[in-house]
C-alpha cells in the first residue's frame, strides 16, 4: 500500500478507499505485501537496491561505469539482505527473468504483457498478478548464483524495459512492486533507449492510469458531484390508490440521463429491494399526466440571460436560468408525480431579475380543456428597468467591494454542498406554487402598480409614447391531479387507505354560504357609522366590478359578451340606486349622499364612481354635492379630502349643458348664507370658479349659447360677485387653481372699479393661471 502512496503525489485517500472496496485487489495485495507472496520481503531494502540499480543504470546509459562495478555494488547491497529471500524476491520482482533463466526474455515478457488487458487496470492487475504467481512459482527453478542472477537481473532489467517500451501499456507491471522499477526505469532509460513516441505513450499511460486498481465505478465528475447522496428511499409498500412506486424515490433531484441512473442503482444495491421497479422507467408521452417540476418549468422557459446581480450575493440564479440549464440536460425524463402542492394562487420563491423578454411559452401541445396557469414570478419590464438602473449605479460605486466579496467566496469552505441542479430543483418546486390561474386577481397589486407607474411616466414625458410595456405572465399549462379515491362498486364508502400522495378526505363537508339577507339580519347593524362603512364597502365591490368590466369584456368570447354587458348594466344601476332618492330618478338622495360622504372612504368612492356614471346620473350627483356643500364642508373639516372630488367634478361640469350649469350654480348658492360658507371652503371656491369658468367658456366660444336666454345666469353671477366683494378676505379661501378666463367673465358683468377690486381680492390677473 505504501508503495502506491509514495509513488504518486496525486494519490489521495480516495485511492485507498478504492483499493479497499475491491475485494480482489485487497486479497492480492495483502498476499503480496504481507502474505505468502511477500514472505519476508523488506520493501525498504528492495527500494534501496532498486534505487541503487537506478543510478547504476543511469551511469550505464551515459556510458560511464561498467557492469562489474554495478555487480559489485549490487552484491554489496544484496549482502545485507538475507540470502534465501533474495532469489524469491528477485524472482517475484522479475518472475519472467527467473523463469527463463537464460531463456527468451522478450517472449515471456510479451506474453505477460498481452495476457493482461491494460484497459481494465484493476482487474487486469489482479489477473496479471495471478498470472504472475504461477510464473513465479514455476520460476522456483534452481537459481543461478546470486551474482549471476543480479547481473542477468541488470541486463534483463534493461531489456525488459526495452520490450516494455515497445509493447502496449505494461500495466501488468504496474500493479505490483514492479512499479518501482517501472517508474524509475522509465526516466533514465527513456532518455537513451526509447524513441520519443514510445516514451510519450508510456508516460501518458502512466499519468492516465496513475495508480492501478482504481475501480471504474468511482470515476467522478469534476468538482465533487454529490448526486450520489440520494435521499434514502422511501420504504413505501405498493398501496392501492397510491401512485406506482418508482425505483428512484419520488423527490430525488434529477441527475444525468437514464444510463447514469442505472449505474447508480447498481452501485447502491441497498436501495429499495422489496419494491424494485416492476415497471421500468418509461419515457413519458408528449404531455404526461405527471410532470416533474423540471419539465413543468422547462416548458415555460425563456432564454438565458446573464444575471446582473453582484457576485457577492451568491448563486441566486434566475429561476428561468435554472430552468434553462436543466432543460438542456433533463430531456423527456419522467420523475414521478409532481409534488402534490399544485394549488393555484400560492406564491413561491421568486428570483431576482427574472427574465428578459417575458414571452408566452407553451411548448407542449395546447391543451384547450386544461386551465392555463400563469407564472407570476416574472417582473414587469418597467420594474426590471428600474432594477437595472439601480444595479448600474451601485456597480459603479461598489466595483472594489465586489472583488473583495469574490475573494471571500473563493475561500468559502461550505460552498458546493449542493450541486447546481439540486438547487435549481428545490427552487423549482417552490416556483411551482407561484403559478396561478388568474394572475390578474392574484397578482393584482403588483400588476396595477406598475401599470400606473408607466402611465404616470408617460404623462410626465408629455405623452411620448415610446412603448407601453405590458407585463405578460408566461403561461404554463396546468395539469389537474385530482385524486379519486379507490372505490369498489357496490361497496359502502371509500377505502381507508391513504398515504402522503393521496391524503384521504376525512369529512365530506359542503360549504354553505349564507345569503345576504340573513347576513344583514344576523349582523344587526346598529352602529350608524358601521352601517355607512358597510354600505360603502358594498358599493366598492360593485365599483371594482365595473372597473374591471372593460378588461373582462376584451377577454370574454363573443357569445358571452352580451351576458357580461347585462351584468355591467346591473351593476351600474345598483350603484346609482344606492345613491338616489327613492322615488325620483334624477335626484340624488341628500341623506344617503351625506351619509356616504361623511366618511373619507365614501368621498373616495364617489370620486372614483363619477367617471363611470352616465351623464344625467353624474350631473345629479354633482348637484347633490353642491346642494349639500356646507354640511359636507363641515364634516370634512377633519379630513380635508373633499378636494379629491375636484377632478371628476371638473369632467362632469365640462360636459354639462348650460341649463344644468345654471342649475348647478343656483344649487351652489342655495339658500341665504350658503355662499359665504361655500366660499370659506377650498373646494367650494374651486367649484364656484369651475362653474363660472365653464359658463364663460360657453359664452365666449358659442355665441348662440343658451346661457343668456334667461337672466338666471346673469343674476347668479351678479350675486356671486356681490358676495365675493362683500366677503372679507380672511373668510375667502384660496382655490386649488384659478381658471384663466375669470377676468373676462367678470369684465362682462361688473364695471371697471369693481373689476379691479375683484382682481385684487381674488388675486387674479389676466396673466395668472
Amino acid at each position: 500500500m505504501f508503495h502506491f502512496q509514495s509513488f504518486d503525489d496525486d494519490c489521495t485517500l480516495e485511492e485507498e478507499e478504492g483499493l479497499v472496496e475491491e475485494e480482489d485487489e485487497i486479497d492480492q495485495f495483502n498476499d503480496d505485501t504481507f502474505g505468502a507472496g511477500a514472505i519476508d520481503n523488506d520493501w525498504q531494502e528492495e527500494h534501496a537496491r532498486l534505487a541503487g540499480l537506478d543510478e547504476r543504470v543511469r551511469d550505464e546509459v551515459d556510458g560511464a561505469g561498467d557492469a562489474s562495478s554495478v555487480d559489485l555494488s549490487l552484491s554489496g547491497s544484496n549482502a545485507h539482505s538475507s540470502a534465501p529471500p533474495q532469489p524469491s524476491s528477485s524472482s517475484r520482482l522479475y518472475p519472467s527473468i527467473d523463469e527463463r533463466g537464460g531463456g527468451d526474455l522478450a517472449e515471456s515478457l510479451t506474453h505477460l504483457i498481452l495476457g493482461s488487458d491494460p484497459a481494465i487496470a484493476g482487474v487486469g492487475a489482479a489477473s496479471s498478478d495471478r498470472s504472475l504467481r504461477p510464473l513465479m512459482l514455476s520460476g522456483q527453478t534452481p537459481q543461478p548464483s546470486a551474482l549471476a542472477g543480479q547481473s542477468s537481473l541488470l541486463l534483463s532489467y534493461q531489456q525488459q524495459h526495452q520490450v516494455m517500451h515497445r509493447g502496449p501499456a505494461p500495466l501488468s507491471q504496474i500493479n505490483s512492486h514492479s512499479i518501482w522499477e517501472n517508474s524509475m526505469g522509465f526516466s533514465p532509460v527513456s532518455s537513451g533507449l526509447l524513441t520519443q513516441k514510445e516514451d510519450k505513450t508510456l508516460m501518458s499511460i502512466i499519468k492516465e492510469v496513475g495508480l492501478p486498481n482504481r475501480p471504474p465505478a468511482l470515476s467522478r465528475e469534476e468538482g465533487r458531484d454529490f448526486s450520489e447522496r440520494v435521499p434514502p428511499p422511501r420504504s413505501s409498500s405498493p398501496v392501492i390508490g397510491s401512485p406506482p412506486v418508482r425505483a428512484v424515490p419520488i423527490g430525488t433531484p434529477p441527475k444525468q440521463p437514464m444510463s447514469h441512473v442505472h449505474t447508480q442503482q447498481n452501485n447502491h444495491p441497498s436501495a429499495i429491494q422489496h419494491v424494485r421497479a416492476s415497471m421500468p422507467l418509461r419515457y413519458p408521452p408528449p404531455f404526461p399526466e405527471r410532470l416533474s417540476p423540471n419539465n413543468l418549468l422547462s416548458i415555460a422557459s425563456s432564454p438565458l440571460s446573464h444575471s446582473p446581480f453582484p457576485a457577492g450575493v451568491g448563486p441566486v440564479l434566475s429561476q428561468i436560468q435554472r430552468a434553462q440549464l436543466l432543460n438542456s440536460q433533463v430531456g423527456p425524463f419522467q420523475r414521478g408525480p409532481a409534488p402534490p402542492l399544485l394549488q393555484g394562487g400560492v406564491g413561491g420563491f421568486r428570483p431576482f431579475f427574472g427574465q428578459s423578454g417575458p414571452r408566452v411559452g407553451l411548448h407542449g401541445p395546447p391543451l384547450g380543456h386544461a386551465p392555463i396557469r400563469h407564472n407570476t414570478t416574472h417582473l414587469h419590464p418597467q420594474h426590471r428597468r428600474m432594477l437595472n438602473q439601480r444595479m448600474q449605479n451601485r456597480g459603479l460605486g461598489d466595483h472594489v467591494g465586489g472583488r473583495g466579496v469574490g475573494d471571500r467566496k473563493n475561500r468559502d469552505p461550505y460552498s458546493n454542498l449542493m450541486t447546481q441542479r439540486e438547487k435549481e430543483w428545490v427552487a423549482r418546486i417552490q416556483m411551482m406554487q407561484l403559478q396561478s390561474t388568474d394572475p390578474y386577481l392574484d397578482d393584482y397589486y403588483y400588476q396595477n402598480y406598475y401599470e400606473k407607474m408607466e402611465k404616470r411616466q408617460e404623462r410626465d414625458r408629455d405623452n411620448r409614447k415610446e412603448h407601453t410595456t405590458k407585463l405578460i405572465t408566461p403561461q404554463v399549462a396546468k395539469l389537474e391531479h385530482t385524486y379519486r379515491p379507490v372505490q369498489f362498486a357496490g361497496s359502502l364508502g371509500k377505502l381507508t387507505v391513504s398515504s402522503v400522495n393521496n391524503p384521504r378526505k376525512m369529512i365530506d363537508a359542503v360549504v354553505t354560504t349564507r345569503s345576504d339577507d340573513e347576513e344583514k339580519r344576523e349582523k344587526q347593524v346598529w352602529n350608524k357609522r358601521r352601517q355607512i362603512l358597510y354600505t360603502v364597502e358594498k358599493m366598492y365591490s360593485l365599483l371594482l366590478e365595473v372597473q374591471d368590466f372593460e378588461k373582462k369584456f376584451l377577454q370574454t368570447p363573443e357569445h358571452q359578451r352580451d351576458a357580461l354587458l347585462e351584468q355591467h348594466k346591473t351593476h351600474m344601476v345598483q350603484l346609482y340606486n344606492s345613491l338616489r332618492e327613492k322615488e325620483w330618478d334624477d335626484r340624488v338622495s341628500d341623506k344617503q349622499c351625506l351619509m356616504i360622504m361623511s366618511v373619507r372612504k365614501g368621498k373616495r368612492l364617489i370620486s372614483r364612481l363619477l367617471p363611470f356614471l352616465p351623464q344625467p346620473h353624474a350631473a345629479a350627483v354633482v348637484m347633490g354635492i353642491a346642494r349639500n356643500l356646507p354640511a359636507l364642508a363641515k364634516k370634512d373639516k377633519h379630513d380635508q379630502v373633499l378636494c379629491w372630488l375636484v377632478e371628476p367634478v371638473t369632467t362632469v361640469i365640462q360636459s354639462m349643458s348650460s341649463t344644468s350649469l345654471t342649475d348647478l350654480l343656483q344649487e351652489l348658492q342655495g339658500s341665504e348664507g350658503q355662499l359665504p360658507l361655500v366660499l370659506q371652503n377650498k373646494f367650494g371656491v374651486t367649484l364656484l370658479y369651475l362653474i363660472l369658468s365653464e359658463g364663460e367658456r360657453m359664452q365666449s366660444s358659442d355665441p348662440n349659447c343658451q346661457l343668456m336666454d334667461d337672466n338666471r345666469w346673469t343674476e347668479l353671477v351678479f350675486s356671486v360677485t356681490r358676495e365675493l366683494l362683500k366677503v372679507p378676505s380672511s373668510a375667502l379661501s384660496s382655490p386649488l387653481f384659478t381658471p384663466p378666463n375669470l377676468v373676462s367673465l367678470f369684465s362682462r358683468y361688473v364695471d371697471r372699479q369693481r373689476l379691479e377690486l375683484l382682481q385684487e381680492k381674488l388675486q387674479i390677473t389676466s396673466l395668472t393661471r
Partner: protein
Amino acid sequence: MLFYSFFKSLVGKDVVVELKNDLSICGTLHSVDQYLNIKMTDISVTDPEKYPHMLSVKNCFIRGSVVRYVQLPADEVDTQLLQDAARKEAMQQKQ
C-alpha cells in the same frame, strides 16, 4: 397572494425589517416568496451597533415568521390600490 404581490412591487427598494427579537435590519429588498421570507442585500443594523456580530454580514435571508414589522418608503406604496386588492381578495374568499 396579496402581500406577496405587494412585496414584489417593493423589490429593489430600501426597507427596514424589524424582527421579533428586536433586531432591526436595514437594506435593499432582494426578493420575497410566498411565505414572505425576505432576502436582503447590503444590510446594516440600524440601531446602535449592539449587534456586533452583524458587522460583516452583507446579505441575509430572513424567515417570514420572525418578522414583526417591515418599514417601507411611503411613496412607493399606493394605498388605494392596496385597498382595492384587499377588497378583491375578500370577495374571492367569500366565493
